[in-house]
């Protein structure tokens, strides 16, 4: 666990590696209720010009969420989290999620987020704000 006092601009979150599988896309469809066939049916995905199934954007974001949640200390919570989906992610890709502190504003650290595939192409980019909890859960 990293101590709050030690955090500074430029610090990096330990990266999170993720290799999606077709099975995981199916499990995510069931858990999220998003059964769009572009995530489940290779033939359909080819017919609509995607060249095969692609991962749900929200499953990619969930991986970034795992990285952030692992990094959180007990007295911190995520207050903002946003991503732009830039490139398609497919089963078998190797995705590396990274994050770095960009700015400190009062009791909030602003992180810059990104993820690359095995070819070094950026698949998402975004930001998160992590805030030190106030009394109870309000902040």
């Amino acid at each position, binding site marked *: 666990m990293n101590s709050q006092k030690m955090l500074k601009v430029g610090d990096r979150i330990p990266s999170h590696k993720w290799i999606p599988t077709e099975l995981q896309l199916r499990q995510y469809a069931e*858990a*999220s209720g998003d059964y769009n066939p572009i995530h489940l049916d290779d033939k359909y995905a080819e017919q609509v010009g995607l060249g095969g199934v692609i991962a749900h954007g929200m499953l990619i974001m*969930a991986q970034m969420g795992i990285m952030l949640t692992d990094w959180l200390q007990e007295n911190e919570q995520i207050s903002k989290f*946003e*991503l732009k*989906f830039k490139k398609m992610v497919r089963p078998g890709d190797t995705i590396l999620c990274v994050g770095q502190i960009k700015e400190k504003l009062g009791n909030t650290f602003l992180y810059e987020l990104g993820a690359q595939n095995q070819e070094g192409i950026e698949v998402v980019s975004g930001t998160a704000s992590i805030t030190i909890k106030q009394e109870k859960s309000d902040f």
Partner: protein
Amino acid sequence: MINKDLIGRESEPVINRIEAESVRRFAEAIDAPNVEDVPPTFVMTLRSGIIPGLELPEKGLIHARQQFTYYQQIAIGDVVSCTRRIADIFERRGGLGLMTFVVQEMTGRNIAGDLVFTATSTLIAREG
């Protein structure tokens, strides 16, 4: 194309209970290390009603951007009332032809009516 008159239109609120079973299933699907904490993106699975008149084409729909703001922590057992509204609809002409951007904002409130989260999704519908 999607009618701009839908901007501002909102769904009726739907009451959701954060169920341990749904959280566990979601956490397992994303391969989260802890299946008891509510993952930050879990709120997207909550029911938020239907916006009358909104029909998004399934084919060619792209999720371009997603933003969450969390005002309170969410835990198993919480009751959250969710609505969604069309925040914006606009068109752009790009390399892929005419694209319609639909911005939907989902809002979750607790029983007291306090904001718990907002989740804003930007979807792009391609013509054809």
